[in-house]
């Protein structure tokens, strides 16, 4: 009898939950936020909604794009809800894209919504969309199996591994926005007719986008940061060129501030790889010379990029944080000394290239 009563009470609990069935929800797979073109509104929100299909073959991914202008993102969502017939579910949204024009303004208001909502994954990717987030989300990729999946596979290392792609999580961006001595950097997705191109990136100061990196700079940054395992690098050699496929890459850096000389940063990069293509005759006995050529050209190029960051007073590598980590003192004091130090900083990029061979032909 007693047990029955307890079971009855527990059954009563089940009726009270407000769970909505899966066929009464729209799953948002990507969120795009642009600057509104209308005068009296601030944002233009684009949501990519997955349309469920009964088979998951290549090219069957269907989606619906809904957009709304509004003065806040909450406003946009609220108005959007009156346009669709099912409840919007943000729990499966794995990417958020900002229009490039929006990023030139102060972004803290814009990202607040993403971080404050409890149901948006902190592990969703962030990217800038060019020409606009809406255009990126509207791109139909012919081979896509699940709606929005092509974009997701580009990031992280699950799908393609490209030296040009920088992956940035939402929580990571949020952290870097506040952290002293580490600045955010996000990839730019360019939408063209039937596919995406992701090979450039944007560096932020704490408030807005400051510097756009081109393809080569993005790749060099990725190598220095040690984000990659695989990358292809080109090296000029005696008026000609050869190309290396790197399959093992490690990088570390450390800032030193000795008392009687200029502060410097050591960046140590170790790479292993094989030669993939050449425009000139290569000799297997001269690997050491080729290694030297790689080390020399790349350390110069990387130093140049680092000086570029330094001139803009940007620090996407995290040298400032590294300095703070190795010095005792109050946070404000450390930060002030670092700000005085950073323009003086010298960069010593040491690359150790290990070539395993010149490929399978002589």
């Amino acid at each position: 009898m007693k047990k029955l009563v307890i079971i009855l009470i527990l059954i009563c609990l089940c009726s009270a939950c407000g769970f909505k069935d899966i066929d009464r929800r729209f799953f948002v797979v990507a969120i795009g936020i642009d600057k509104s073109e209308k005068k009296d509104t601030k944002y233009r929100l684009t949501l990519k909604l997955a349309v469920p299909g009964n088979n998951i073959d290549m090219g069957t991914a269907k989606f619906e794009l809904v957009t709304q202008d509004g003065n806040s993102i909450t406003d946009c969502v609220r108005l959007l809800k009156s346009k669709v017939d099912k409840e919007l579910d943000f729990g499966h949204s794995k990417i958020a894209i900002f229009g490039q024009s929006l990023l030139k303004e102060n972004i803290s208001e814009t990202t607040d919504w993403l971080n404050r909502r409890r149901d948006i994954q902190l592990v969703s990717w962030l990217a800038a969309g060019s020409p606009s987030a809406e255009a990126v989300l509207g791109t139909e990729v012919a081979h896509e199996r699940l709606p929005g999946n092509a974009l997701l596979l580009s990031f992280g290392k699950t799908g393609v591994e490209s030296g040009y792609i920088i992956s940035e999580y939402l929580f990571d961006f949020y952290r870097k926005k506040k952290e002293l001595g580490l600045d955010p950097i996000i990839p730019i997705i360019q939408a063209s007719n039937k596919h995406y191109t992701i090979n450039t990136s944007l560096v932020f100061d704490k408030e807005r986008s400051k510097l756009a990196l081109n393809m080569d700079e993005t790749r060099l940054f990725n190598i220095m940061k040690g984000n990659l395992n695989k990358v292809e690098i080109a090296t000029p050699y005696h008026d000609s060129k050869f190309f290396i496929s790197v399959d093992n890459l490690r990088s570390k850096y450390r800032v030193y501030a000795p008392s009687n000389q200029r502060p410097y940063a050591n960046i140590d990069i170790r790479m292993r790889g094989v030669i993939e293509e050449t425009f000139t005759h290569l000799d297997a006995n001269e690997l050491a010379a080729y290694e030297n050529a790689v080390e020399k050209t790349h350390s110069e190029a990387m130093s140049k990029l680092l000086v570029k960051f330094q001139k803009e007073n940007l620090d996407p590598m995290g040298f400032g944080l590294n300095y703070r980590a190795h010095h005792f003192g109050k946070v404000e004091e450390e930060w002030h000394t670092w700000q005085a130090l950073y323009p003086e900083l010298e960069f010593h990029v040491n690359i150790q290239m290990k070539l395993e061979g010149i490929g399978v032909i002589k």
Partner: protein
Amino acid sequence: MAMLLSIPIGSTLLIVFVNSIRKFPGLGLPEILKNHTPNWIRIPFMIYFLSIWFVAGMITVISFSEITKKYINPDISSMVIAFAFICIIGLIARLRSDTILYSMEILIIMNVPFVLWVLYKAVTNNSMNYDACMEIVSHIWNVPTWDTFAAGTYIFTGYTNLVIFNRLMGTAKKMPFLWTIPIVGSCVLATSFLIPVGFHGTMNVNAYIYPWISTSDSMRVEFGLVERVLFIFMYLYTNISLAGSFIHWHVCLEFVKELMPRIKDKSYFSWIVIGVMGLTTYLFSYLFNDQTLYQTGVYFLNIRFASEIALVVTMFMLARRKKQ
């Protein structure tokens, strides 16, 4: 600094307490007090400590019903979740002491491998920034506050439940493997403090209300059972915390039983006590919001630390008196 100091302080309290209570093999604190102190000390003392134990369980239940509502089912009222938790905890808390210990053991064995897996995934994660951890460690000389001490020593506070469970600990004078607890405790303290810093940075880790939940949400395991570690973590976190709260409530219940010895063996007695505890918790869960709950938690930790010291000192003095 507070962390570093709380390890020796917590361990000292632990060792002193355990060694003192081992002088009374097979007896719980209520019996010891009955034998060695007059009634006018014993009764207020026990009422005070049973309320501390009750509040410990209560705060856990309320905060977990809030968390469950936030992260698992936002469409449900947190009162319903609180009610479900109270039912389960209440049912377990009124079981016999040894049954409770066995169920605790099963829970631990089931959860620890997953906990270790989550920790492993966290420290090997690419997003884990060790510079940020080092930066925090480099501020080790900051002056500690009472709040941080209270929070730091809470890791070690499980031993106080021996006030009841000492009844089951047999007659051996020494507690085996006592030395492992400070080591495990310091590891737990270091990881639970440094991993969120490594993920959210030195500046931003304060921005999160539940740093560890947000940290587990920041981990993605592409080829795992569930891609988002958040849900696995929520399961573990809820499990272990609720285990803690049924232990607390059980201790509370046993204290009440000793206060009312005449009716303690009646079958309805424990139901009534549990019912009162559940009802109070249910009412409080209606009154708290995020902020007040957090504040209450901080106050509770501070008071607990003070009372824990008082408890250990009392126990120590009782043990000395017995020897003489």
